[in-house]
């Protein structure tokens, strides 16, 4: 069903784009490095493991403007991320996306609404984490002056695992009689977000944002963790840890705070320093934290 929706969406938009109007092309290269404090989303101290990471992605697309204040962006991206201390989490990704933006008037200072749809594929070092992704989002933004811009949005992510598990957990001896679905990468979540960005006189851009997540998250732990197993929506061996851990799909609410400073280098390049802090409240289990620091070089080719 999802695949059909994606195919139909892109067929219609591509037809419009190719036949009705010309487009403005773009291509962006991102190279990122950083550190993530709790990569497996570990709940217990012994499960928390950090890792440095390196990543790169290339995205390209076209903007079409069928009406004066309406624009459509078609884009595709490919990327790869490697975790230096946790290679089991390495993954490559492909994504195609389209967005429709409507401005309520002309110019830079008019409110705008953006509706986005995207579909992607992630191939991980461990097959069990392979998945197909489908995202859609609705955002509104407003530039208040040359320096200040605010935005808010809603998004939904649907993930579908694509590989069968190696073990049937209904046969695990320590919780006889309890069975669970076995693909933790089958999940959904929703987010509400708000952010603001402020450009300093020297061109540096400071941004801050908050995101509230409600839905599923995947937590990895050394077995057995009875309370996780009892409340998990799905369980599987975590291929990122070579049979050492289980990954659990849990219901959670999360508060995610972020701040970043983007330093321009000419018109087409910038170096971004970003910090994210996340607090997950897992239903009936408890809360745990994660943080991430990254440095990203972004260049428009």
């Amino acid at each position, binding site marked *: 069903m999802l695949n059909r929706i994606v195919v139909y969406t892109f067929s219609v938009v591509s037809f419009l784009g190719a036949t009705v109007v010309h*487009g403005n092309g773009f291509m962006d290269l991102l190279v990122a490095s950083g550190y993530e404090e709790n990569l497996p989303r570990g709940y217990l101290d012994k499960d928390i493991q950090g890792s440095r990471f390196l990543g790169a992605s290339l995205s390209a697309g076209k*903007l079409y*403007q069928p009406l*004066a204040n309406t624009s459509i*962006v078609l884009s595709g991206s490919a990327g790869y991320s490697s975790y230096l201390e946790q290679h089991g989490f390495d993954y490559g990704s492909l994504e195609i996306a389209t967005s429709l933006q409507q401005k309520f008037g*002309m110019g830079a200072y008019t409110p705008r609404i953006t509706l986005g749809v995207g579909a992607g594929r992630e191939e991980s070092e461990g097959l069990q984490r392979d998945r197909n992704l489908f995202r859609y989002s609705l955002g509104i933004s407003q530039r208040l002056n040359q320096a200040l811009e605010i935005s808010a949005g809603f998004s939904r992510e649907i993930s579908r695992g694509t590989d069968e598990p190696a073990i049937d957990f209904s046969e695990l001896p320590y919780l006889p009689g309890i069975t669970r679905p076995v693909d933790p990468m089958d999940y959904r979540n929703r987010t509400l977000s708000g952010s603001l960005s402020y450009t300093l006189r020297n061109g540096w851009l400071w*941004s801050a944002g908050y995101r509230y997540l409600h839905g599923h998250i995947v937590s990895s732990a050394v077995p057995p963790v009875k309370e996780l197993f009892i409340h998990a929506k799905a369980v599987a061996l975590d291929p990122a840890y070579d049979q050492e851990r289980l990954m659990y799909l849990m219901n959670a609410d999360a508060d995610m705070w972020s701040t970043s400073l983007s330093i321009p280098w000419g*018109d087409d*390049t910038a170096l971004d320093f970003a910090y994210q802090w996340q607090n997950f409240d897992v239903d009936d289990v408890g809360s745990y934290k994660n943080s991430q620091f990254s440095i990203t070089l972004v260049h428009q080719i």
Partner: protein
Amino acid sequence: MIKNSPSYLIALAVSLISVPGYSEELRVSITDLLAESGLADAVVELQPKETWSIAVSPVETSVDQVDKEFVSGVTVVPRGSRVSFPNSDDILHHVYSFSPAKTFDIPLYGSDENREHYESFSKSGIVEIGCNIHDWMLAYIYVADSALVAKTDKHGIADFRSLKPGAYSVKIWHSRMGTAGFVTRDIAIGADEAKVLSVTLDLEPERRIRRAPTSTRNRYR
């Protein structure tokens, strides 16, 4: 309009140079207090205070779009002139203005389109030009009432030669003042007299919508 705003003008000096044999000339020298150097691309307009006037001759000129910027950033034309907005980029632009002196928009067009399309500027004032796709693109068209108008060079100098002796109002504007302000001063030019009007302006640093990309923003810019 804010006239003679003291926040813009911190020093004004008029020096008289008496050089026999010179025709009536005025040199306006504008200094940027912040940069401590000459202020380029300031507009200086002289308006005779006497009853006589100088015929204004409209012109045809263009403001090009090159590498997602307007070229030039400040264009000076007499009232009644016509301006075209060619697109020398290989992408599309959508030029517009909301300014009271001239409101228009030229919907999305590409290279070699609209080269013969002209907009007429019949009302004096400062017209702010933007692109509806590329938010950082910004340019100004200064529509002058007088034929005696010039932009300062990179040293902050604007020269006026062969002036008719008499009293003039000198109006000075720079894009860092925005569209709502300018500085005016009065000056008298005598027969065979050359004068230098030195002005130091205390302007806020330029603040534009940022063009450079970020990893957190949507990708098309």
